[in-house]
């Protein structure tokens, strides 16, 4: 059996996902170049050097991957990045909840948003089990965060109805 036949008997490596970062790098580098094309040399010199190296490395990687697909040792699929596991493990749902948290925190403030986020995320990941425990844990953690960061350190965390209410209570409503 020659080497090519041996290669064909091996399971094909999924390489689609590996192309994502170099592709993003190429797109970003090309965009970056458009922003400095009319700039003074000081703004260009380092970026052109780094960008040129990144483009060259990515090109070599694309050619190498293309050749592997042509040889039959690799296939263009994205299952290393997206698979049914992402839905069954709750990862996709966690991403949606995290994105909603980042949006909600501007209006809901730290404490309420963190409570909702922790409760939803833990419930989804735990397949809906132990809701009572999760609710209590989420409450303790979000209130603990409020006490440590906002009350003790006076950090300028995003403020919402809860923080405003507590500020009024602590200043005796004045």
């Amino acid at each position, binding site marked *: 059996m020659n080497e090519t036949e041996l290669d064909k008997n091996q399971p094909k490596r999924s390489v689609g996902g590996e192309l994502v970062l170099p592709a993003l790098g190429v797109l970003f580098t090309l965009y970056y170049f458009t922003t400095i094309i009319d*700039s003074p040399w000081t703004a260009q010199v380092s*970026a052109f050097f780094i960008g040129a190296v990144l483009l060259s490395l990515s090109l070599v*990687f694309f050619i190498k991957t293309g050749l592997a697909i042509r040889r039959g040792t690799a296939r263009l699929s994205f299952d290393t990045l997206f698979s049914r596991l992402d839905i069954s493990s709750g990862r996709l749902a966690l991403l949606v909840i995290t994105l909603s948290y980042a949006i909600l925190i501007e209006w809901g403030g730290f404490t309420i948003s963190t409570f909702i986020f922790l409760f939803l995320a833990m419930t989804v*990941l735990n397949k809906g089990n132990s809701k009572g425990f999760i609710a209590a844990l989420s409450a303790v953690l979000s209130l603990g965060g409020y006490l440590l960061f906002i009350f003790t350190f006076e950090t300028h965390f995003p403020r919402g109805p809860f923080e405003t209410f507590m500020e009024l209570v602590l200043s005796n409503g004045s």
Partner: protein
Amino acid sequence: MEVDLAFFAELLAHTLSFWWVIIPTIFLGLIVGAIPGFSAANTIIILLPLTLAMEVEIGLIFMIALYCASRMGAGIPAILVNIPGTAGAAATPLDGYPMTKQGRGQQALAMSFVASTLGGLLTTIIALAAMPMLAEVGYYMHAVEMIVVMLFGISLIATIAAKDTLKGLIAGFLGLMIGSIGSDVVYATPRGTMGFLELYDGIPLIPALVGLFAVSEAFIIIEKSSIITEEGRATMQKPGWGATLEGTFLALSKWWHITWTSLIGLIIGVIPGAGASIASFVAYQQSRAFSKTPELYGTGHPEGLIAPESANNGVTSGTLIPLLILGIPGGATAAIMLVVLQYHGVDFGPSLFFQQPELAYGVFMAMAVTYALMILTILPLSRYMSRVTLVRTVYMAPVIIAFTLVGSFVPREYLFDLYLGLAFGVIGYIARKTGYHVAAILIGVILGPLLETYFLRALKKSEGDLMTLFSSNLGNILWALLAASILLPIFIDRFRKPKPTDAAL
């Protein structure tokens, strides 16, 4: 006042009498160091009204203790959950986290505490003895020399790339490209900002750190019920002090490694503008380059954990030297200390050592006492801290996401940084799932802008002459050392490998 042994003995006893300030501050420092987004500098700013109201001596001890403890605290989440508390601990998880996954978290923590303490103590003593000489290091380090120092750190990308060179280099250069976002240092021309005003100052480090390490890690760990292996879990569930003692003795047996890597930290710390992140990357790279077992780095190798931890603690004493002798702060925390002490009427410079020697030398004595008390208070806790890794990932992942994402908001108070942390999280997740190293991206993001700044300064000064890079004696020595540190391990490796004919025999 005469500065002799009796003076130092009296100063030591006097500093020890402030244990009631130092011990609570150590715990505060450990907490703020462990949370990404918080740092000693931020905390001193937040507590500025309190610091300014304190007596100058107590205020100084408070700031020093907070500074040292936060540096050590940053390594704790880096080891246990792969999340460096600050950029200075970004090289710590490279070997610390694999140890945790193997169920050796307690041992790793003990090693990190011993390495940090010994590194910090040793460099403090050296700083006390050789302060005037060390202060001059800053004078000799110009743009050209700094370029080579940065390249020492960046060459770690090549080390990381050793397993898959092409992917490692793509990750590193992608990081460098992302690090180039923002205005250029000479004409402030905005570059690659995608129209976001928030990016004009460049990529903020905390959202990058949070996203690449914490958020991406949280999305990965949910695939399993625990972050540690089954065998590791079994080991962790056996209660005892054995692992702490083992880690302590293992770190002590590497005393020479701690010594030279902490000296790297001390020297880099003395250079204004350089910092713990550069020191820890350089120390890790050098440690691997001259190791007899470089192939073990990245798999949970004790030396790979000791090197960055002792180096970033070596930086703490280094940054205070230019502050005390020249009045030039070596870093952000030192700059805030300068403001607080000037408020109290303290004048920096060589005269400080004659006029107020108890204050000038007291800074380093406070540091030494803090390190000594820190090891006594924190080492026993490693047994309990490491148990955090037994928490199920369904609970741990959301907590990591919530608290680190909000932490990315803290330094600049822009909600934009929260989204940026999430975007870096997606990049980090793609990188981890497809075999790219997130540390290589982060090195690029951290060191890229610094390298560009020094490179432009050198070129501007020499009116565009590239030969300026080889125009100084110290610079040329550093170039030679850089070349040696990259090439020597390759030659040594080839020399060590048995010849095929020997094997055949």
